[in-house]
């Protein structure tokens, strides 16, 4: 990989991976489920809880069914990529580390105007909030920068610093592309050069049609309720596993169901079958699941449980 300006979407991703690897982050892989944002990855949601230090970075494919535009809108997609960094405790030089990552993908601070503009982050579905900024580069929002204060209703101690890059938008800006589908995905000089559209235009059409008109709302509703019930059922199990004789709290399997419920809700929302009043109720139901998962996670080793006594409830 060369210095100077990156030439493709994937080169930007690779440079971010290299950069954060060099800064000591574990480079994780995407979570293998449909999520609305990189924050839903358990590497963020759950690992932001408890006292154990953590540093991870990963690409997360994200789905927002309501944003589907059949691949026609220059920058709206129902499936897109986020780049996510979570470091706990947040290091004192996190802003500088972040700026270093922008430099790594070819943004020259001598010529660009970088701004940290107030943007408090809140996820009603995760029962989480934090303070931070949206980062502007020449008036374009290129990242979200958040100091997590609460997740799943628990105070974050220590506080995690979270960075989220909207990869398509950032890459379009760096590469000077006006329509996302025209963006080089691999190197433009490769034997088989591929544009973003070559990879995703057809899927955007397919999913837009399905999301908006075809998805079976009765089934989605049923799936939502099934996931909700299963999440609760998993967590209702006693901690002691009779087969292995070990204390095994099944947080991640339960959290998977929470993620599913959240995605089914998003699909229902895109189908336009959720009224504004019901909307709040659904969000509250997902939040209740996230809260239970968070409660359970802090009872596990990864969540800082030390084995002597149950971790004190926040």
């Amino acid at each position, binding site marked *: 990989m060369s210095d100077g300006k990156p030439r493709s979407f994937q080169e930007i991703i690779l440079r971010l991976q290299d950069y954060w690897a060099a800064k000591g982050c574990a480079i994780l892989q995407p979570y293998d489920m449909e999520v609305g944002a990189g924050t839903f990855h358990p590497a963020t949601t759950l690992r932001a809880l408890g006292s154990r230090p953590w540093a991870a970075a990963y690409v997360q494919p994200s789905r927002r069914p309501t944003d589907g535009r059949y691949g026609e809108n*220059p*920058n709206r997609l129902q499936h897109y990529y986020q780049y996510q960094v979570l470091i706990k*405790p*947040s*290091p*004192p030089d996190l*802003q500088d580390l972040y700026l270093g990552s922008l430099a790594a993908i070819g943004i020259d*601070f*001598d*010529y*660009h*105007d*970088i*701004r*940290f*503009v*107030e943007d*408090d982050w809140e996820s009603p579905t995760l029962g989480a909030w*934090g*303070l*931070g*900024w949206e980062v502007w*580069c*020449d*008036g*374009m929002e290129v990242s979200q920068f958040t*100091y997590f*204060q609460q997740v799943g209703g628990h105070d*974050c*101690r*220590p*506080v995690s*610093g979270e960075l989220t890059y909207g990869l398509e938008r950032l890459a379009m*800006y760096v590469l000077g592309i*006006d329509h996302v589908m025209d963006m080089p995905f691999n190197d433009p000089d490769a034997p088989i050069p591929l544009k973003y559209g070559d990879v995703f235009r057809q899927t955007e059409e397919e999913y837009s049609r399905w999301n908006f008109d075809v998805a079976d709302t009765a089934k989605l509703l049923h799936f939502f309720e099934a996931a909700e019930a299963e999440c609760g059922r998993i967590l209702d199990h006693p901690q002691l596993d009779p087969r292995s004789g070990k204390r095994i709290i099944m947080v991640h399997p339960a959290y998977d169901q929470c993620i599913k419920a959240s995605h089914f809700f998003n699909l229902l929302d895109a189908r336009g079958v959720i*009224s*504004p*009043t019901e909307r709040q109720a659904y969000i509250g139901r997902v939040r209740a699941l996230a809260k239970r998962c968070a409660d359970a996670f802090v009872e596990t080793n990864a969540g800082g449980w030390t084995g002597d006594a149950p971790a004190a409830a926040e």
Partner: protein
Amino acid sequence: MPDLLIELFSEEIPARMQAGARDALRERVTNGLVEAGLTYAAARAWSTPRRLTLAVEGLTARSPDLREERKGPRTDAPEQALEGFLRSTGLSREQLQARDDKKGQVWVAILEKPGRPAPEIVAEVLEATIRSFPWPKSMRWGTGSLRWVRPLQSILCILSDEAGAEIVPLEVDGIRAGDVTRGHRFMAPEPFRVTGIEDYQAKLKRGFVMLDQDERAAHIWHEATNAAFAQGLELVEDRGLLAEVAGLVEWPVVLMGAIREEFLSLPAEVLQTSMKEHQKFFSVRDPGTGRIVRFVTVANRETPDNGETILHGNGKVLAARLSDAAFFWGNDLAVARAGMEEWRAALGQVTFHNKLGSQADRIARIEALASEIEPLVGADPDLAAQAARVAKLDLASSMVYEFPELQGTMGRYYALEAGLGDAVANAARDHYSPLGPSDDVPTEPVSVAVALADKLDTLTGFWAIDEKPTGSKDPFALRRAALGVIRLVLGNGVRMSLSEMGLGHLMRSHVVRSGEGRNGDGYGFGGQTDFLIEFFVMLSGGGFGGGDYQKAEFWRAEATEKTSDLLAFFHDRLKVFLKDQGIRHDVIDACLSMPGNDDLTLLVRRAEALNAVLRTEDGENLVQGFRRANNILTQAEAKDGVEYSFGADPKFAEDPAETALFAALDAAEAAIGPAMGAEDFAAAMAAMASLRGPIDAFFEAVQINAENPILRRNRLNLLHRIRATCLSVADLTRIEGG
């Protein structure tokens, strides 16, 4: 006298919080210093996105030594008393002095509190200030427990004088105060030392930081107006945006860019709102056409290409935003030209409030009410109804969905596009007004009718479902709605009985109509808009057994009660409003007890006339005379157990002053009656005030409680005439003071 310089250097502070933070830092630190015994000559606070700075000039170097003598128990007092005294003073017996006192010999404690050096005091005060700083929202970071608006990175705290600078010894959660700061994040990131306030300002300027927010704002304004002027254009003034942008940059660089041709046909308000909300751009207008043709963005740095890259990037973001806006505008125009039916249908699906139905239900109610109001404001009945039907349709448009603050503004464009004419279109725009106390009041009759109908429907609706404002909670902005009604009524001289209008609307629109029979609802009654059904069912204990007549009577009683409660709310708001106009609350009370108090125009005219007359010497003294007459009469009536209202007879008048009072009352009554009938309150008040001389003379010359019972009774009856005459004008018993 040293100067104190404090800089709290942090990650980016939200622009909207900076002004409050400056004030809080200045007040808390200076108050703390003064409380600890220091004095200072001047204090100023500044802020940039990354720093909060306080400069205190001419601070005393030490707090003064204090000496206090405290008298204790007598030397022969019991041991416990002495021990208590020693405990409270913290001294030992040897340190006390025995002194002679009037009551004998007593112990005296000499308490000496030596002054403390300024650095010690500053350190304490600043630490306390940091730990309890009133940020609207604060956070923790890393492993610490300190809260600040964003991570606090360093503290500069020095005391400086001719001899040099001294770092104030202070550490807050591992952050040790020093004399070092940094310049602009990108243009001058190297740390540097600071030796005093001037040195700090000068070095910051060299480090590309304009410390003073006012200087930044002035700079931005100046540069931006110049750039616009140079091209024959003008900058659209926006003070809020200016303050915000000045809070986003340390080194403001103004850049002006063009708006692409394809977007120039968008309404000016759309361009302005989109640019301001999304990009924090100023708008630049062509004074000839009134169109927005350029934008101004404020960058936070200078660049080797003079901002070209930055401007290009910003222009690109703007183009993407305006593409969205143009798309919305195009879609909306198509719907508008087709008569807006699509929006009408859509609003049937949008809930206004779950107990008050959909937006479509609400529009139907407003239309009905506007038709009632229209004759009172001289609006064309067809136009008023039409305006009420379309005024809120833009709520379903894409543009208003994207920019809620453009409601009404878009409504006007769309109504014109639908061919509905100016009166209706202006009502769509203006019926939300007045929003604030300084907002203009609509005057076009159609707009007034719809504006009043809209607000009255909101008020009666929320009163019907018992969602009244309480304390500081007013989630549906009902106080504002009531003030809006008051200003619309008074501003246009509308004569309207609020009680009748409110009751009528409550009965017609918010209460089920009896006798129409609704199928399948289990209650056997119904109407088109039955929002109160649950409320009344609940009140009545779950069901109605009686006939329709009883139900109707029940609802009427409920609605009447709610109407009078709503009227009281209007009166409260009116008092607040009139107080700001210089009319005392007791003057309003005196008029509130008069008939027709639900006609605000009449009520206020009466109050204004009374207020004016009370400011005259006659008026002021008349109140005294009235009070005296009223007191004597009330006491006599209480004592005698009778009411002296039989009509005084002039033939028993003994004193010329008494005779004169009879004549004056005759004249005043003759004038007051017709004046009141003609609602000429000034004339009625003047006639009342003219009684002042005769009343004063009467009290001067005559003893009321005369020994002759006939004379006494006649005089008391005369007092009754005074009272009755005055009370026919206003309830003077409500007037306070003496």
